[in-house]
């Protein structure tokens, strides 16, 4: 075993047999299993761990848990690294590597420490005041300010670890496994409730883990005995889930609580290991047992390494067997620090004195200290400290009679550590996040839980209880009553009797006086905010605490001011001459402690980032080397490049093949809705703009659906399969929303209509074939079907067998060519496709993707919902007056089509555009102007909605929405681009076969 200079010879909960090697700033150290990085560093006498954010002052380990403002380190390296990790919560593991942040070139010699010398020039609001003008230089300033500010480095590669999320439900969620939380969980569990008990620390027990029990007895034994028995009891309860290393970071509506479980952070880590698990808990009842956070004292030069919270010092001694120093001074305004003094003295640390701001200290605890020979200096204060990288001495003076200044001689006390306590603030963060009201406790100088807004109870120190007896009895009571509230009335338990010394009153001391004017007293250690900064902010007119917070940045660090916020409030209140509750508190926001993006993302990364929907023929497209396009969550084949073809070459080839021979398209993504009922035709009459009642059985009709504001929502072909039976198709992207739309109208507006809608999108694979040879191809595979044009007319349907598969074939077209849509049960989609490809070989069959489909329909001037229409376009704007039947009665959107705005002549209307150079393809989205100016702004009269090269026309084509477009045919307009102006001529949007002769061929 290698020597750890400040490791006590015995005591603590670390595993002394297990030595753990780690490195800090490149130097190798040893600690024990069970240590935190902070306790291991202290065991090696390392107090200086970082530099402060603004002044780059040396800073040491300040706390012992998640409240830590100072000891932020960068953990790990490369892709597995985390910045701003609190050394006090990092569990030690073999090979751990930590480095200091915010210092250069080294921690001990930091060049930016120069900021500290000129700190008078860097008051609150310095950045706001200095770098405001000229505004254009802010980007330059910001770069340098960022570099100087103390945040760690981001990982330089993909996160190699795994994260997962899980949902959980319980009757009672207990947050915090200190004495109150353990008692609550035990009581609720005994009553039969489903309980989750979560605690942020590696070991359950909370304050009991730091309690040697020298002065406290629980039942017949020590606090440790009770802890052991309780944990064993909880572990034996089937419906109790114990979650150590789990922080409740956010408390949301309806008792929805986010927990972060650090599954693997305490392990060296292999690639792919499960690192963290995010729990989304829905609890019927919540019991908060989150404890209290010790406040710092605001005194002169209170930020040197070696100065820490008294409770933290006590934890290091009792829980980790580490001495925070060899000579210490305790500074306090309450009794709790005496326990620290006693424990340190018992461990052999020289306690020079307890400096107590209170005039008279005569309770149980001071008496025990005096009996142990510890000098108690009541009515005294620390007026300054010394020591560059570690505190080396403190000056102590007597308080004057009023208590607002100092008097008498200065006494120097040599020391290498200071343990301070400014009292305890209940950890009301989660209670406040849950929208609970806080009330101010004048006596203790604390905010405590008031009226709750959710099913939540606060017990123990977070409810201002200071005595163990109160924590245990409140815990048992809350656990029992929470269980009863959810109907669990099983076994009842009683809280054990507790023997403990009485606690005397604390005396609020928001700013300890000093004999030196202008000396710095830090309030927010992480953000380097001093009492002076707060004074200045108030003098400059910032009276709202929320404004003071933002101006001075107090409480805005990664610790969110856990140890300093109440001090800041009190100092601002003093300056304003107001009561603390009148000043109020700043908002407690989630997360309580930082949460990784990895945990928030969970397993939804890489291939699982978002669902990829696959058609039944997907594998074929992959095998053929298709490029894919995302359409909603679908992957659709975009084009099929052959050999070295470019996209343009491939699409040109596919487009020509569909017009000259036969093309084949996977159309399975099309939305399909089965509509049945005696009122089905009437229903369609109301949701589409055109008439449906006279559609014959076996016939198809194209329809456009409007929203109630008259704007185009969706379109598609619907087929009448029977008198009361229709099959509707929708666009790929709107399949789900159209079904919801139909259901909404049926359920809320027209419950009298007898219609049932069922989605069959996924039931059928759909293959579209088109082109002059499409009929011949189909005939070869469907010998039983009647395919001649007289008997199988455009816009009709036939059922039969294709390639031996029962199929429903629609003769429809989205390309202007003779086309067939063949629908078969999805399981046979691939078989149908394979048969068509094989049979099509002699016809030169060409698979085409969505890009060619877009070109083909654009050649015909067919609009696409969502491309030409964007939610502001009526069918009249699209030039589709023929689809609106004004005489059939009402339909959704009808009234809106005659609003003054929708009948304006100068609305944007669908037109075609030809560029003057036929090879120039406009960018989609390009703005169109009638008059070109030297530079923007220009009057934009429309925009390009679709633009392609058309190999069948041998030139580029574009569709555009142009103000009064239909009246502009033949006009020359302009598309101003960054480097040139493109001249365009307005045309009809139907570019190819305007008479539709090919369709009936």
């Amino acid at each position, binding site marked *: 075993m290698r020597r750890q200079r400040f490791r006590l010879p015995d005591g603590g909960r670390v595993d002394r047999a297990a030595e753990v090697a780690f490195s800090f700033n490149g130097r190798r150290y040893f600690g024990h299993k069970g240590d935190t990085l902070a306790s291991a560093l202290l065991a090696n006498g390392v107090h200086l761990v970082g530099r402060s954010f603004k002044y780059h002052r040396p800073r040491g380990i300040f706390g012992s848990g998640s409240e830590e403002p100072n000891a932020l380190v960068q953990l790990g390296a490369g892709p597995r690294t985390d910045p701003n990790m609190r050394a006090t919560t990092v569990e030690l593991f073999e090979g751990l590597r930590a480095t200091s942040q915010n210092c250069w070139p080294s921690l001990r010699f930091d060049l930016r420490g120069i900021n500290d010398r000129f700190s008078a020039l860097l008051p609150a609001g310095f950045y706001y005041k200095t770098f405001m003008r000229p505004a254009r230089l802010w980007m330059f300033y910001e770069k340098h300010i960022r570099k100087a500010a103390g945040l760690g480095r981001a990982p330089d590669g993909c996160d190699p670890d795994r994260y997962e999320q899980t949902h959980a439900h319980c009757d009672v969620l207990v947050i915090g496994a200190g004495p109150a939380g353990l008692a609550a969980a035990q009581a609720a569990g005994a009553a039969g409730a489903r309980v989750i008990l979560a605690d942020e620390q590696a070991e359950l027990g909370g304050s009991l883990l730091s309690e040697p029990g020298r002065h406290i007895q629980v039942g017949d034994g020590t606090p440790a005995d009770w802890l052991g028995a309780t944990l064993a009891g909880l572990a034996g309860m089937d419906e109790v889930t114990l979650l150590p290393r789990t922080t409740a970071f956010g408390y949301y509506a309806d008792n929805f609580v986010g927990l972060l479980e650090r599954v693997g952070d305490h392990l060296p880590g292999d690639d792919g290991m499960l690192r963290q698990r995010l729990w989304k808990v829905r609890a019927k009842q919540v019991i908060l047992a989150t404890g209290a956070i010790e406040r710092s004292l605001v005194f002169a030069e209170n930020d040197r390494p070696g100065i820490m919270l008294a409770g933290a010092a006590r934890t290091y001694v009792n829980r980790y067997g580490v001495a925070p120093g060899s000579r210490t001074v305790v500074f306090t305004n309450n009794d709790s620090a005496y326990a620290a003094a006693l424990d340190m003295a018992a461990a052999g640390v020289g306690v020079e004195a307890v400096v107590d701001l209170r005039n008279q200290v005569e309770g149980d605890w001071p008496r025990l200290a005096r009996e142990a020979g510890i000098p108690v200096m009541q009515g005294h204060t620390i007026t300054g400290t010394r020591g560059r990288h570690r505190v080396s001495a403190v000056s102590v003076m007597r308080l004057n009679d009023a208590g607002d200044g100092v008097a008498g001689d200065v006494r120097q006390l040599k020391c290498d550590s200071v343990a301070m306590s400014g009292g305890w603030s209940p950890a009301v963060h989660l209670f406040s996040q849950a929208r609970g009201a806080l009330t101010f406790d004048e006596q203790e100088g604390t905010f405590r839980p008031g009226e709750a807004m959710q099913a939540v109870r606060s017990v123990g120190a977070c409810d201002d209880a200071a005595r163990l007896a109160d924590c245990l009895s409140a815990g048992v009571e809350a656990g029992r009553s929470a269980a009863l509230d959810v109907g669990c009335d099983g076994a009842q338990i009683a809280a054990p009797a507790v023997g403990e010394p009485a606690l005397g009153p604390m005396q609020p001391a928001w700013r300890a006086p000093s004999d030196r004017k202008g000396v710095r007293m830090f309030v927010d250690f992480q953000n380097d905010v001093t009492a002076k900064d707060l004074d200045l902010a108030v003098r400059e007119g910032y009276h709202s605490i929320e404004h003071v917070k933002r101006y001075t940045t107090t409480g805005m660090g990664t610790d969110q001011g856990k140890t300093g916020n109440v001090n800041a409030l009190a100092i601002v209140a003093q300056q304003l001459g107001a009561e603390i509750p009148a000043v109020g508190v700043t908002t407690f926001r989630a997360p309580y402690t930082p949460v990784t993006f990895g945990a928030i993302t969970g397993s939804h990364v890489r291939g699982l980032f978002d669902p990829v929907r696959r*058609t039944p023929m997907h594998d074929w497209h992959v095998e053929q080397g298709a490029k894919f396009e995302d359409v909603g969550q679908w992957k659709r084949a975009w084009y099929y490049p052959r050999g070295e073809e470019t996209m343009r070459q491939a699409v040109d080839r596919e487009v020509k093949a569909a017009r000259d021979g036969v093309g084949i398209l996977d159309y399975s993504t099309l939305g399909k809705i089965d509509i049945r009922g005696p009122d089905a035709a009437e229903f369609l009459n109301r949701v589409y703009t055109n008439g449906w009642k006279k559609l014959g059985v076996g016939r198809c009709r194209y329809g456009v659906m409007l929203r109630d504001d008259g704007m185009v929502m969706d379109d598609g072909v619907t087929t009448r399969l029977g008198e009361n039976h229709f099959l509707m198709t929708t666009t790929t992207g709107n399949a789900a929303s159209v079904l919801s739309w139909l259901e909404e109208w049926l359920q809320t507006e027209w419950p009298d209509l007898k219609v049932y809608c069922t989605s069959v999108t996924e039931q059928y694979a759909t293959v579209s074939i088109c082109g002059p040879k499409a009929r011949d191809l189909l005939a070869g595979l469907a010998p039983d079907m009647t395919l001649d044009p007289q008997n199988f007319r455009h816009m009709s349907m036939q059922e039969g067998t294709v390639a031996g598969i029962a199929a429903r074939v629609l003769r429809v077209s989205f390309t202007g060519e003779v086309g067939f849509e063949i629908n078969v049960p999805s399981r046979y989609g691939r078989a149908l496709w394979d048969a068509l490809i094989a049979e099509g070989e002699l016809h030169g069959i060409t698979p085409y993707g969505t890009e060619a489909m877009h070109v083909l329909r654009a050649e015909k001037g067919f609009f696409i919902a969502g491309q030409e229409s964007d939610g502001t376009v009526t069918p009249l704007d699209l030039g589709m007056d023929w689809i609106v039947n004004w005489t059939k009665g009402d339909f959704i959107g009808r009234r809106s089509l005659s609003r003054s705005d929708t009948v304006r002549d100068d609305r944007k209307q669908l037109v075609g555009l030809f560029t003057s150079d036929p090879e120039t393809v406009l960018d989609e989205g390009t703005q169109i102007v009638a008059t070109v100016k030297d530079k923007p702004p220009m009057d934009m009269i429309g925009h390009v909605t679709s633009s392609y090269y058309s190999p069948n026309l041998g030139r580029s084509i574009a569709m555009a929405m142009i103000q009064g477009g239909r009246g502009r045919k033949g006009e020359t307009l302009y598309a101003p681009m960054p480097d040139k102006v493109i001249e365009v001529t307005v045309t009809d949007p139907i570019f190819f076969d305007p008479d539709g002769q090919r369709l009936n061929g």
Partner: protein
Amino acid sequence: MGSGSMADARSPLAHLDGATVIERDGVRLAENPDAGKVNLRGDAGDAVWLAAIQAAVEIDLPQAPNTSTETPPLSALWLAPDEWMLVCADGSEGDVVASLEGAVAEFHASVVDVTDARTVFRLSGAGARNLLAKGCALDLHPRAFGLGDVAQTMLAKAAVILHQTTDDADEAGPVFDIYVPRSFADYLWSWLTDAIG
């Protein structure tokens, strides 16, 4: 339009080349693509209609939300106050559709074969509930969700129907049938494979 044919049927996981059974850590996951599924809609308040359904396929449709009934080999899952999914033996959906259509001809009702619209992932074992909890926000504790219960819910980012088909006390642990939209099958299989760990 029936589906009897000579052609090759393909499951939505065919590209996995048969690797469609996973057994690990107390969980078993397997695909069952062919179970027949028929969507049925009608008026649950019409006793005559219910009796006609009973007469046709010998099952009482469940009336309580999110429950199911079973008359082997047929089961009926409640989906909405007027909607059920009947699950039947592989290949028998055509017969079930024909029987139902005959029975409801005189009523306003809807019978739709949705066999190919969803595949089924059968998840079983003691660890099944914890696995589902990773992607499903519902309370699946045995006190809240048990034998015969049905849920229409999200599992990861796929909308599924969840049905517990055996009791927790059974030797192999509980069995859940997860009805997955066909196009989501590969995604959800990948997600489950990852979540099993």
